[in-house]
Protein backbone atom coordinates (compact mmCIF):
# COMPACT_ATOMS: atom_id res chain seq x y z
CA UNK A 1 0.00 0.00 0.00
CA UNK A 2 2.81 2.36 0.99
CA UNK A 3 4.65 1.52 -2.20
CA UNK A 4 1.55 2.27 -4.24
CA UNK A 5 1.10 5.69 -2.63
CA UNK A 6 4.74 6.53 -3.29
CA UNK A 7 4.30 5.45 -6.90
CA UNK A 8 1.21 7.63 -7.30
CA UNK A 9 3.04 10.58 -5.77
CA UNK A 10 6.08 10.03 -7.95
CA UNK A 11 4.21 9.89 -11.26
CA UNK A 12 3.71 13.69 -11.55
CA UNK A 13 7.33 14.27 -10.53
CA UNK A 14 8.61 11.85 -13.16
CA UNK A 15 6.30 13.41 -15.73
CA UNK A 16 7.59 16.89 -14.86
CA UNK A 17 11.19 15.71 -15.27
CA UNK A 18 10.47 13.96 -18.55
CA UNK A 19 8.20 16.71 -19.86
CA UNK A 20 10.80 18.56 -22.00
CA UNK A 21 11.93 15.39 -23.75
CA UNK A 22 8.38 14.13 -24.35
CA UNK A 23 7.39 17.58 -25.56
CA UNK A 24 10.25 17.72 -28.07
CA UNK A 25 9.79 14.18 -29.35
CA UNK A 26 6.02 14.58 -29.81
CA UNK A 27 6.30 17.95 -31.54
CA UNK A 28 8.98 16.65 -33.88
CA UNK A 29 6.22 14.67 -35.61
CA UNK A 30 3.72 17.53 -35.83
CA UNK A 31 3.10 19.17 -39.21
CA UNK A 32 4.68 22.63 -39.78
CA UNK A 33 1.25 24.28 -40.07
CA UNK A 34 0.17 22.90 -36.71
CA UNK A 35 3.43 24.00 -35.13
CA UNK A 36 3.01 27.53 -36.45
CA UNK A 37 -0.48 27.65 -34.99
CA UNK A 38 0.68 26.24 -31.66
CA UNK A 39 3.84 28.27 -31.11
CA UNK A 40 3.25 31.29 -33.36
CA UNK A 41 1.98 33.44 -30.46
CA UNK A 42 5.31 32.94 -28.66
CA UNK A 43 7.58 33.64 -31.60
CA UNK A 44 5.55 36.20 -33.53
CA UNK A 45 2.68 37.57 -31.42
CA UNK A 46 1.77 40.14 -34.10
CA UNK A 47 1.12 37.52 -36.71
CA UNK A 48 -0.40 34.98 -34.32
CA UNK A 49 -2.29 36.71 -31.55
CA UNK A 50 -3.43 34.64 -28.58
CA UNK A 51 -1.70 32.00 -26.54
CA UNK A 52 0.65 29.17 -27.43
CA UNK A 53 -0.75 25.67 -27.12
CA UNK A 54 1.41 23.03 -25.46
CA UNK A 55 -0.55 20.08 -26.83
CA UNK A 56 0.85 16.59 -26.52
CA UNK A 57 -1.23 14.70 -29.01
CA UNK A 58 -0.54 15.75 -32.59
CA UNK A 59 -3.43 15.97 -35.00
CA UNK A 60 -1.93 13.56 -37.46
CA UNK A 61 1.63 12.34 -37.35
CA UNK A 62 4.01 13.47 -40.05
CA UNK A 63 7.69 13.39 -40.84
CA UNK A 64 7.79 16.64 -42.81
CA UNK A 65 10.03 18.22 -40.17
CA UNK A 66 12.66 15.51 -40.55
CA UNK A 67 12.40 15.64 -44.32
CA UNK A 68 12.86 19.41 -44.30
CA UNK A 69 15.75 19.24 -41.86
CA UNK A 70 17.63 16.31 -43.33
CA UNK A 71 17.18 17.18 -46.99
CA UNK A 72 16.85 20.94 -47.25
CA UNK A 73 18.94 22.36 -44.43
CA UNK A 74 22.60 21.78 -45.33
CA UNK A 75 23.57 24.34 -42.70
CA UNK A 76 22.41 21.94 -40.02
CA UNK A 77 24.94 19.35 -41.15
CA UNK A 78 27.76 21.89 -41.22
CA UNK A 79 27.10 22.61 -37.56
CA UNK A 80 26.58 18.93 -36.77
CA UNK A 81 30.00 17.98 -38.17
CA UNK A 82 31.55 20.94 -36.38
CA UNK A 83 30.25 19.51 -33.11
CA UNK A 84 31.51 16.04 -34.04
CA UNK A 85 34.95 17.47 -34.85
CA UNK A 86 35.06 19.39 -31.57
CA UNK A 87 33.89 16.50 -29.38
CA UNK A 88 36.06 13.78 -30.92
CA UNK A 89 39.14 16.04 -31.01
CA UNK A 90 38.67 17.01 -27.37
CA UNK A 91 38.08 13.44 -26.19
CA UNK A 92 41.02 12.11 -28.21
CA UNK A 93 43.24 14.97 -27.05
CA UNK A 94 42.32 14.36 -23.44
CA UNK A 95 43.22 10.70 -23.83
CA UNK A 96 46.65 11.75 -25.00
CA UNK A 97 47.21 14.67 -22.60
CA UNK A 98 45.05 14.27 -19.49
CA UNK A 99 45.58 10.58 -18.79
CA UNK A 100 49.41 10.71 -18.69
CA UNK A 101 49.22 14.06 -16.83
CA UNK A 102 47.02 12.52 -14.14
CA UNK A 103 49.34 9.51 -13.97
CA UNK A 104 52.33 11.81 -13.54
CA UNK A 105 50.69 13.75 -10.73
CA UNK A 106 49.51 10.61 -8.98
CA UNK A 107 52.55 8.38 -9.24
CA UNK A 108 55.65 10.57 -9.42
CA UNK A 109 57.14 12.83 -6.81
CA UNK A 110 58.77 15.84 -8.34
CA UNK A 111 59.51 19.33 -7.15
CA UNK A 112 56.50 21.62 -7.31
CA UNK A 113 54.03 18.79 -7.78
CA UNK A 114 51.70 20.01 -5.05
CA UNK A 115 51.77 23.61 -6.20
CA UNK A 116 51.21 22.58 -9.79
CA UNK A 117 48.31 20.34 -8.84
CA UNK A 118 46.82 23.07 -6.65
CA UNK A 119 46.99 25.33 -9.70
CA UNK A 120 45.17 22.67 -11.70
CA UNK A 121 42.40 22.53 -9.11
CA UNK A 122 42.24 26.32 -8.98
CA UNK A 123 41.84 26.44 -12.75
CA UNK A 124 39.16 23.78 -12.59
CA UNK A 125 37.18 25.78 -10.05
CA UNK A 126 37.23 28.93 -12.17
CA UNK A 127 34.11 29.42 -14.22
CA UNK A 128 34.41 30.16 -17.92
CA UNK A 129 33.28 33.74 -17.39
CA UNK A 130 36.42 34.45 -15.37
CA UNK A 131 38.79 33.06 -17.99
CA UNK A 132 36.84 34.38 -20.94
CA UNK A 133 38.72 37.64 -21.47
CA UNK A 134 42.20 36.19 -20.98
CA UNK A 135 41.36 33.31 -23.31
CA UNK A 136 40.04 35.73 -25.89
CA UNK A 137 43.24 37.80 -25.76
CA UNK A 138 45.36 34.66 -25.94
CA UNK A 139 43.46 33.25 -28.91
CA UNK A 140 43.66 36.60 -30.62
CA UNK A 141 47.44 36.63 -30.17
CA UNK A 142 47.64 33.07 -31.43
CA UNK A 143 45.52 34.02 -34.43
CA UNK A 144 43.02 31.25 -33.93
CA UNK A 145 39.94 33.31 -33.13
CA UNK A 146 36.95 32.24 -35.20
CA UNK A 147 38.25 28.71 -35.60
CA UNK A 148 37.25 25.42 -33.98
CA UNK A 149 40.60 25.42 -32.17
CA UNK A 150 39.22 27.97 -29.71
CA UNK A 151 36.99 25.22 -28.36
CA UNK A 152 39.24 22.22 -28.98
CA UNK A 153 42.43 23.48 -27.32
CA UNK A 154 40.92 24.48 -23.96
CA UNK A 155 39.06 21.17 -24.03
CA UNK A 156 42.17 19.10 -24.62
CA UNK A 157 44.04 20.86 -21.83
CA UNK A 158 41.05 20.88 -19.49
CA UNK A 159 41.95 20.26 -15.86
CA UNK A 160 38.78 18.37 -14.95
CA UNK A 161 39.80 14.95 -16.35
CA UNK A 162 43.24 15.27 -14.75
CA UNK A 163 41.65 15.88 -11.37
CA UNK A 164 39.23 12.94 -11.69
CA UNK A 165 41.83 10.49 -13.01
CA UNK A 166 44.36 11.60 -10.41
CA UNK A 167 42.17 10.06 -7.72
CA UNK A 168 41.89 6.80 -9.65
CA UNK A 169 45.62 6.48 -10.22
CA UNK A 170 46.45 7.57 -6.69
CA UNK A 171 44.51 4.58 -5.42
CA UNK A 172 46.79 2.00 -7.04
CA UNK A 173 48.81 0.33 -4.26
CA UNK A 174 52.50 1.23 -4.30
CA UNK A 175 53.37 -2.43 -3.85
CA UNK A 176 51.89 -3.26 -7.27
CA UNK A 177 53.97 -0.60 -8.98
CA UNK A 178 57.09 -1.66 -7.05
CA UNK A 179 56.53 -5.30 -7.99
CA UNK A 180 56.28 -4.33 -11.65
CA UNK A 181 59.50 -2.32 -11.38
CA UNK A 182 61.27 -5.24 -9.74
CA UNK A 183 60.12 -7.44 -12.61
CA UNK A 184 61.90 -5.06 -14.93
CA UNK A 185 58.89 -3.24 -16.36
CA UNK A 186 59.68 0.18 -17.78
CA UNK A 187 57.69 3.26 -16.71
CA UNK A 188 55.81 3.21 -20.00
CA UNK A 189 54.86 -0.45 -19.56
CA UNK A 190 53.73 0.21 -15.98
CA UNK A 191 51.53 3.05 -17.23
CA UNK A 192 49.95 1.04 -20.02
CA UNK A 193 49.77 -2.33 -18.22
CA UNK A 194 48.74 -1.20 -14.76
CA UNK A 195 47.65 2.43 -14.83
CA UNK A 196 45.37 2.42 -17.85
CA UNK A 197 43.55 -0.87 -17.06
CA UNK A 198 43.16 0.12 -13.43
CA UNK A 199 41.81 3.55 -14.23
CA UNK A 200 39.81 2.43 -17.27
CA UNK A 201 36.41 3.01 -15.68
CA UNK A 202 37.54 6.49 -14.64
CA UNK A 203 38.90 7.22 -18.12
CA UNK A 204 35.63 6.05 -19.73
CA UNK A 205 33.56 8.07 -17.25
CA UNK A 206 35.57 11.21 -17.95
CA UNK A 207 35.32 10.70 -21.70
CA UNK A 208 31.54 10.34 -21.53
CA UNK A 209 31.15 13.42 -19.32
CA UNK A 210 33.47 15.49 -21.48
CA UNK A 211 31.79 14.40 -24.70
CA UNK A 212 28.41 15.47 -23.35
CA UNK A 213 29.82 18.74 -22.05
CA UNK A 214 31.44 19.64 -25.34
CA UNK A 215 28.44 18.50 -27.35
CA UNK A 216 26.36 21.03 -25.45
CA UNK A 217 28.89 23.85 -25.66
CA UNK A 218 27.23 27.27 -25.85
CA UNK A 219 29.22 30.05 -24.21
CA UNK A 220 32.61 29.48 -25.84
CA UNK A 221 31.39 29.51 -29.44
CA UNK A 222 29.26 32.57 -28.75
CA UNK A 223 32.36 34.43 -27.61
CA UNK A 224 35.11 33.09 -29.86
CA UNK A 225 33.28 32.32 -33.08
CA UNK A 226 31.92 34.84 -35.53
CA UNK A 227 31.43 32.81 -38.67
CA UNK A 228 28.18 30.88 -38.60
CA UNK A 229 29.76 27.97 -40.47
CA UNK A 230 32.16 27.43 -37.55
CA UNK A 231 29.45 27.23 -34.91
CA UNK A 232 28.66 23.97 -33.14
CA UNK A 233 25.27 22.30 -33.29
CA UNK A 234 24.31 23.58 -29.85
CA UNK A 235 23.85 27.03 -31.37
CA UNK A 236 21.53 25.83 -34.11
CA UNK A 237 18.49 25.53 -31.89
CA UNK A 238 18.57 29.06 -30.41
CA UNK A 239 18.25 30.33 -33.96
CA UNK A 240 14.69 29.11 -34.16
CA UNK A 241 12.09 31.49 -35.55
CA UNK A 242 8.69 31.09 -37.07
CA UNK A 243 10.13 30.30 -40.48
CA UNK A 244 11.97 27.24 -39.31
CA UNK A 245 9.99 26.23 -36.25
CA UNK A 246 9.00 23.02 -38.00
CA UNK A 247 12.59 21.85 -38.07
CA UNK A 248 13.50 23.00 -34.58
CA UNK A 249 11.95 20.04 -32.79
CA UNK A 250 13.37 17.55 -35.27
CA UNK A 251 16.77 19.22 -34.87
CA UNK A 252 16.45 18.94 -31.09
CA UNK A 253 15.74 15.21 -31.35
CA UNK A 254 18.72 14.63 -33.65
CA UNK A 255 20.92 16.78 -31.38
CA UNK A 256 19.98 14.57 -28.45
CA UNK A 257 20.83 11.27 -30.16
CA UNK A 258 24.68 11.38 -30.03
CA UNK A 259 24.67 12.38 -26.35
CA UNK A 260 22.25 9.56 -25.61
CA UNK A 261 24.24 6.99 -27.58
CA UNK A 262 27.53 7.98 -25.97
CA UNK A 263 25.96 8.00 -22.53
CA UNK A 264 24.41 4.56 -23.08
CA UNK A 265 27.70 3.18 -24.36
CA UNK A 266 29.58 4.47 -21.34
CA UNK A 267 26.84 4.28 -18.73
CA UNK A 268 28.13 1.23 -16.85
CA UNK A 269 31.67 2.62 -16.79
CA UNK A 270 30.34 5.96 -15.60
CA UNK A 271 28.36 4.28 -12.84
CA UNK A 272 31.25 2.06 -11.77
CA UNK A 273 33.58 5.06 -11.86
CA UNK A 274 31.29 7.04 -9.56
CA UNK A 275 30.81 4.00 -7.31
CA UNK A 276 34.57 3.45 -7.13
CA UNK A 277 35.08 7.09 -6.11
CA UNK A 278 32.40 6.74 -3.43
CA UNK A 279 33.94 3.52 -2.04
CA UNK A 280 37.35 5.18 -1.79
CA UNK A 281 35.89 8.08 0.16
Amino acid at each position, binding site marked *: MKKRIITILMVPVVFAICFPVIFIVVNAFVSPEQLSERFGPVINPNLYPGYAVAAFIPEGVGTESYKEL*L*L*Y*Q*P*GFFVLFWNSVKICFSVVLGQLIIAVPAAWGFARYDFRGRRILFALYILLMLMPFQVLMLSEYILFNKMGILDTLLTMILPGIFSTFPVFILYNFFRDIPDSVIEAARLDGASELIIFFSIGVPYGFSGIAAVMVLQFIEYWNLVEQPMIFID*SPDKMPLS*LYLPSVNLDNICISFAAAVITMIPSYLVFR*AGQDKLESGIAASAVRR
Partner: protein
Amino acid sequence: MRIKKKVQIFGIVVFLMIMATFTFISRYINESGLTAVRICQVGIDGSISSEGVVNCGDASYIFFPLYEDTILGRQLYAHMEKVTITAEKNETAYIDSDSGVFLYIIPEEKKIDELYDGEMLREV
Protein backbone atom coordinates in the same frame (compact mmCIF):
# COMPACT_ATOMS: atom_id res chain seq x y z
CA MET B 1 26.74 -7.93 -21.98
CA ARG B 2 29.76 -7.61 -24.22
CA ILE B 3 27.58 -7.99 -27.30
CA LYS B 4 25.22 -5.31 -25.97
CA LYS B 5 28.18 -2.99 -25.45
CA LYS B 6 29.44 -3.61 -28.96
CA VAL B 7 25.98 -2.87 -30.33
CA GLN B 8 25.88 0.40 -28.37
CA ILE B 9 29.27 1.49 -29.66
CA PHE B 10 28.31 0.36 -33.14
CA GLY B 11 25.16 2.50 -32.79
CA ILE B 12 27.27 5.66 -32.62
CA VAL B 13 29.13 4.65 -35.77
CA VAL B 14 25.87 3.82 -37.58
CA PHE B 15 24.38 7.15 -36.53
CA LEU B 16 27.40 9.04 -37.84
CA MET B 17 27.22 7.12 -41.11
CA ILE B 18 23.52 7.97 -41.47
CA MET B 19 24.28 11.63 -40.83
CA ALA B 20 27.13 11.52 -43.35
CA THR B 21 24.75 10.09 -45.95
CA PHE B 22 22.17 12.80 -45.32
CA THR B 23 24.91 15.43 -45.44
CA PHE B 24 25.85 14.24 -48.89
CA ILE B 25 22.21 14.07 -50.07
CA SER B 26 21.37 17.45 -48.58
CA ARG B 27 24.35 19.13 -50.21
CA TYR B 28 23.57 17.49 -53.53
CA ILE B 29 19.95 18.67 -53.44
CA ASN B 30 20.72 22.18 -52.28
CA GLU B 31 23.68 22.85 -54.46
CA SER B 32 21.82 22.06 -57.63
CA GLY B 33 19.52 24.75 -58.89
CA LEU B 34 20.05 27.22 -56.11
CA THR B 35 21.99 30.41 -56.22
CA ALA B 36 24.32 30.61 -53.27
CA VAL B 37 25.50 34.06 -52.46
CA ARG B 38 27.87 35.36 -49.88
CA ILE B 39 26.66 38.16 -47.68
CA CYS B 40 29.04 40.46 -45.98
CA GLN B 41 28.86 43.52 -43.86
CA VAL B 42 31.28 46.20 -44.95
CA GLY B 43 32.19 49.07 -42.68
CA ILE B 44 32.70 52.59 -43.96
CA ASP B 45 36.45 51.98 -43.77
CA GLY B 46 36.16 48.90 -45.94
CA SER B 47 36.51 46.44 -43.08
CA ILE B 48 34.39 43.31 -43.18
CA SER B 49 32.91 42.57 -39.80
CA SER B 50 30.92 39.45 -40.58
CA GLU B 51 29.95 37.31 -43.46
CA GLY B 52 27.92 34.25 -44.28
CA VAL B 53 26.32 32.29 -47.04
CA VAL B 54 22.68 32.29 -48.00
CA ASN B 55 20.72 30.50 -50.62
CA CYS B 56 18.50 33.02 -52.27
CA GLY B 57 17.23 31.01 -55.20
CA ASP B 58 14.17 29.73 -53.40
CA ALA B 59 14.09 32.10 -50.44
CA SER B 60 15.55 29.45 -48.19
CA TYR B 61 18.74 30.12 -46.33
CA ILE B 62 21.63 28.29 -44.77
CA PHE B 63 23.18 30.25 -41.97
CA PHE B 64 20.77 33.07 -41.87
CA PRO B 65 19.01 32.45 -38.54
CA LEU B 66 22.26 32.45 -36.64
CA TYR B 67 22.72 36.10 -37.41
CA GLU B 68 19.53 37.07 -35.66
CA ASP B 69 21.27 38.38 -32.58
CA THR B 70 23.78 40.45 -34.45
CA ILE B 71 23.41 43.81 -36.12
CA LEU B 72 23.89 42.12 -39.45
CA GLY B 73 21.29 39.52 -38.58
CA ARG B 74 18.70 42.04 -37.60
CA GLN B 75 19.30 44.07 -40.70
CA LEU B 76 19.23 41.06 -42.95
CA TYR B 77 16.21 39.68 -41.19
CA ALA B 78 14.39 42.91 -41.79
CA HIS B 79 15.39 42.86 -45.43
CA MET B 80 15.09 39.22 -46.19
CA GLU B 81 12.37 39.71 -48.72
CA LYS B 82 14.50 42.28 -50.43
CA VAL B 83 17.50 39.95 -50.33
CA THR B 84 15.50 37.23 -51.97
CA ILE B 85 14.29 39.48 -54.72
CA THR B 86 17.39 41.44 -55.53
CA ALA B 87 20.14 38.86 -55.26
CA GLU B 88 20.92 37.20 -58.51
CA LYS B 89 23.83 35.16 -59.62
CA ASN B 90 26.88 37.11 -60.70
CA GLU B 91 25.37 40.32 -59.51
CA THR B 92 26.38 42.54 -56.66
CA ALA B 93 23.34 43.68 -54.81
CA TYR B 94 23.09 46.56 -52.44
CA ILE B 95 20.82 45.82 -49.52
CA ASP B 96 20.95 48.46 -46.92
CA SER B 97 22.89 51.36 -45.62
CA ASP B 98 22.52 52.21 -41.98
CA SER B 99 24.80 54.29 -39.82
CA GLY B 100 27.79 53.95 -42.06
CA VAL B 101 27.44 50.23 -42.58
CA PHE B 102 26.85 48.77 -46.00
CA LEU B 103 25.56 45.33 -46.69
CA TYR B 104 26.40 43.55 -49.88
CA ILE B 105 25.44 40.39 -51.54
CA ILE B 106 28.13 39.11 -53.83
CA PRO B 107 28.21 35.87 -55.77
CA GLU B 108 29.48 32.83 -53.91
CA GLU B 109 32.27 32.23 -56.38
CA LYS B 110 33.61 35.75 -56.01
CA LYS B 111 36.24 36.23 -53.33
CA ILE B 112 35.44 38.61 -50.50
CA ASP B 113 38.83 40.23 -51.10
CA GLU B 114 37.62 41.45 -54.44
CA LEU B 115 35.44 43.90 -52.61
CA TYR B 116 38.55 45.84 -51.74
CA ASP B 117 39.16 46.83 -55.31
CA GLY B 118 37.08 49.89 -54.56
CA GLU B 119 34.71 49.51 -57.46
CA MET B 120 31.86 48.09 -55.46
CA LEU B 121 32.28 50.47 -52.59
CA ARG B 122 32.17 53.43 -54.94
CA GLU B 123 28.92 52.19 -56.45
CA VAL B 124 27.23 52.70 -53.11
